[in-house]
């Protein structure tokens, strides 16, 4: 079985996320890191490999993004991927969800994976949906938010929470699965793996290499058009208590609740 894991470089959690008000795109200056949700997808791939039910020949990390995104690939490799593919092309910059999913699907097509894994969301885009777009383009069955995945012959038995409780769904391979963050506890990379990550094969491809129709990608060609940004309605800031002396803090909470007749 060959598994491709989609990973993304996102601003570090500690960096305040801001919008560039003239382009509508995110201000991407500052520290970046591998999207934390994607580490669960890599871990899920590793657990399938280690589970031994179906032999895994290869785990390939795939990303689309600017030059700096190679660092996310290195991180993915240090966590267990065998090699990586980087789609990097000015033509895809600024793509919306639908265009990004199309471009990623084209990149994946060349790899003919048996399983494509994604994280539940990107920390910056928060669309939750790239998996569904990729699956439609590849003509594969798909599920998002999967928190348990058992390998069966030619299929996966998946569990996830949907709007009415937990569903168990059997999905034939090849398939596209976005995993929820409750699926596993990602391991930490070993120092050796971190040091060795840059030596693993990394292939950089352009739009033409993966036969992307460039009239369908990029900010200008994306079907969803960003027109403006505005601030959310102002909400009166809540009161904040820093807990220094807990007895005093609790007194304040009780007084606050009492004032509002909540006790």
């Amino acid at each position, binding site marked *: 079985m060959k598994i491709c894991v989609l990973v993304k470089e996102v601003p570090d959690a500690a960096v305040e996320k801001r919008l560039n008000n003239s382009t509508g795109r995110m201000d991407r200056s500052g520290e970046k890191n591998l999207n934390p949700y994607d580490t669960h997808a890599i871990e899920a791939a590793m657990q399938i490999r280690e589970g031994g039910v179906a032999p895994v020949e290869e785990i390939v990390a795939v990303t689309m993004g600017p030059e700096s995104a190679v660092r996310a690939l290195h991180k993915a490799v240090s966590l267990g991927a065998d090699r990586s593919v980087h789609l990097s092309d000015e033509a895809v910059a600024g793509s919306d969800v639908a265009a990004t999913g199309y471009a990623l699907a084209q990149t994946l097509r060349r790899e003919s994976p048996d399983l494509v894994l994604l994280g539940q969301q990107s920390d910056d885009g928060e669309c939750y949906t790239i998996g569904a777009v990729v699956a439609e383009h590849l003509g594969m069955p798909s599920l998002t938010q999967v928190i348990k995945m058992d390998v069966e012959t030619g299929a996966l038995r998946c569990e996830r929470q949907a709007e009415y409780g937990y569903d168990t769904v059997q999905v034939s391979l090849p398939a596209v699965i976005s995993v929820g963050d409750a699926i596993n506890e990602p391991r930490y990379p070993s120092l050796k793996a971190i040091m060795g990550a840059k030596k693993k094969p990394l292939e950089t491809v352009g739009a033409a290499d993966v036969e992307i129709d460039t009239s369908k990608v990029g900010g200008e060609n994306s079907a*969803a058009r960003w027109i403006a940004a505005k601030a959310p309605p102002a909400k009166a800031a809540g009161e904040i208590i820093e807990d220094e002396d807990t007895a005093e803090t609790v007194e304040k909470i009780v007084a606050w609740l009492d004032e509002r007749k909540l006790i």
Partner: protein
Amino acid sequence: MTNILVYALHYEGAINKNSLGAVSEGAKLAAELGGEAHAILVGEGVPQDLAASLGNYGASKVLVAEGPEGLAQPVVDAMGAAISGGDYKYALFGGGLLGFEIGAGLAARLGAGVAMEVTAVRAEGGELIAERPILGDSAISEISYRSEVGIVIGRLNAFEIKETGAGAAAVEQLSFELSPHASQAKMITRGEQRGADVDIEGADILVAGGRGLGKAEGFQLCEELAGAFGNNAAVAATRAVVDAGWYPYAAQIGQTGKTVSPKLYLAAGISGAIQHKVGMQSSENIVAINKDSNAPIFEFSDLGIVGDLNKILPKLTEAVKAKKG
């Protein structure tokens, strides 16, 4: 014509509340665009009167398609067929998980633009403009569509349910072909309720716990505090801890759980992710205890306590007990 096709999710004989909101919103927007709102239901033997009842929320026509329930891709096929055979300019979804998957799949199928987590939509110059909060709700971006069809996926509870009193809608059977990949996923069990069947919806006070409780046993702290408040209080939870098996699903608040608006929502060890917020933000009073002063929950709480819940909750329980005498 500028008709809007609205997906209506149904389960065990009832239409999902968020879908009713979406149908109401679709009807309002279609009227502004000078078109009609049609709804679509996909399922196994969908009752005719259930479909027709969507007329009460403003759908002038309801398409019913026979297909597997609870999975997104068959609905993409059905909606794709409806849109290619009809006169639709927009597809609209209420909040929820399936709507996200269907909307995204449909965008790929049709080469359409899609906006998700939409909190408001307006008609302007014959087009729809969707408002989508981004970056943890710190900004709202406005999205329009370049494609022939535009797809709008609402945020949970974003669209208000409005009964128009228009009566039953015309119901039409829609036939469509299941694409090969749509038949490669099979529902084994649906809607399993994990854990005890607790009732939290009637409670005036909810003490909610999240991952910050550290372990399943941590919920005892919440239960003791709820106990101190008395009979009108109950314990609620986030998806993170329900998925981890620490607390029953019936107590979960949020996008794939319950929506509540108690007099007091006291959140302990909860970060305040959007999918949790959408289920509790209309609570009358929100109190949050979190050790991280940057936790998003402080952005929408009325009283925020930056501190360790393990220190605060036991003392708070004692103090509430003492106060009640």
